[in-house]
């Protein structure tokens, strides 16, 4: 049976597909690099005892959480043009949306990790005569980081999976390249769709599987 796999090895098709994945990975990497510091900031602010601050952050988090990421992409991509007359490129819109989403998710992880530190840890540190800064630096911070690293690695795989949506606002990434290749080879290999999409699926798997394995390993090790 013709599985349309030969198309992959024609010309520069393989390299083009990998380049498409590179585009998705680049956007997720930039978004993650923005979200981690902002998320840490947001998570720390979510634990302060100021009702206004926590309420605003809570609202932001819940709105971002409840909306499908594709809706957020549409809101920014189509909405900004309308509201500000700006013509945002698909790439810029997706980096913005994924950073917004990543910050919310990361913020919630940081909040959870910070609130997970038992009160007696603070009390013991103060009883030992540590200052507030010392308590945070030597007691709270190391424990939080240990809990956070596996979770933030998991966030990276979620980010990579979510960036596959950017094809819907016209960014040229894996799926777009795949469509172009299938279209170009329609007569020569009519079954290209099977081989090419299977390859794309496996490519995403190859990108995400090692990262989620690493996260799982660290989670077990540092429990």
């Amino acid at each position, binding site marked *: *049976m013709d*599985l*349309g796999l030969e198309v992959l090895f024609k010309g520069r098709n393989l390299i083009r597909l990998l380049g498409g994945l590179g585009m998705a990975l680049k956007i997720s990497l930039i978004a993650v690099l923005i979200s981690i510091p902002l998320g840490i900031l947001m998570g720390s602010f979510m634990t302060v005892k100021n009702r206004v601050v926590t309420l605003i952050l809570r609202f932001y988090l819940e709105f971002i959480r*409840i*909306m*499908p*990421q*594709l*809706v957020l992409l*549409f*809101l920014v991509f*189509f*909405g900004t*043009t*309308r*509201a500000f007359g700006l013509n945002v490129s698909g790439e810029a819109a997706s980096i913005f949306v994924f950073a917004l989403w990543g910050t919310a998710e990361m913020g919630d992880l940081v909040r959870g990790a910070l609130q997970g530190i038992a009160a007696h840890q603070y009390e013991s540190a103060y009883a030992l005569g540590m200052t507030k800064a010392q308590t945070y630096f030597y007691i709270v911070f190391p424990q939080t980081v240990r809990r956070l690293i596996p979770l933030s690695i998991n966030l990276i*795989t979620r980010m990579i*999976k*979510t960036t*596959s*949506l950017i*094809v*819907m606002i016209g960014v040229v990434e*894996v*799926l777009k390249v*795949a469509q172009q290749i*299938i279209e170009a080879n329609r007569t020569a290999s*009519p*079954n290209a*769709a*099977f*081989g*090419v*999409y*299977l390859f*794309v*699926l496996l490519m*995403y*798997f190859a990108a*995400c*599987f090692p990262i*989620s394995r690493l996260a799982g390993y660290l989670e077990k090790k540092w429990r």
Partner: protein
Amino acid sequence: MNPDFIYKVLPLYKDAAVLTLQVGFIGIFLSVLIGLVCSLIRYYKVPFLTGAVAVYIEISRNTPLIIQLFFFYYGLPKIGFKMNAFVCGAVGLGFLGGSYMAEAFRSGLEAIAKVQIESACSLGLSGLQTMRYIIFPQAFALSFPAFMANVIFLLKETSVFSAISLMDLMFTAKDLIGIYSKTAESLFLLVVFYLIILLPVSLLGSYVERRLGRHGFGS
């Protein structure tokens, strides 16, 4: 914002929401079925099948739904499996959700202490009875928060169905923006309809989680 326009296109959004919910519910039902079967296979360590289930779970969890849908909808027909967009959407959601549900159920099943099963055994309960009366009720309560989180996640994932040209909410919004260039109204309705679908489920989820926590099920 133009109220007349909103009033005019409201039925379109309503139809799209109904379609989204139909595919979503069938897909979630499929994922619960797949999840139950997979978690039981892993729990009882059925030979051969355990390995197959592990491979399925890893593939399903480490690939995005949109790619899975493209493969099912455009790839599989080339080797003789044809599905219409509606069926494909439900199957795709089931394929994705099955692994998430399996993990949720498995964590519930594995949290039941071994001594409970041994006690059931010594009371003369059969394997099936132990599952029905001892393991299942506790495991169900334990995995319920994860189950609700998965339902919300899967309902959100339905937004990618427009990729296989199912006339869902995203499709409708994009269409209306393209035809009438009434961006604000179209996006407003899109957000409102997703809130109508997702907010009750999300509130129910946190309510149930609080209740289960308060009564200390399985803790």
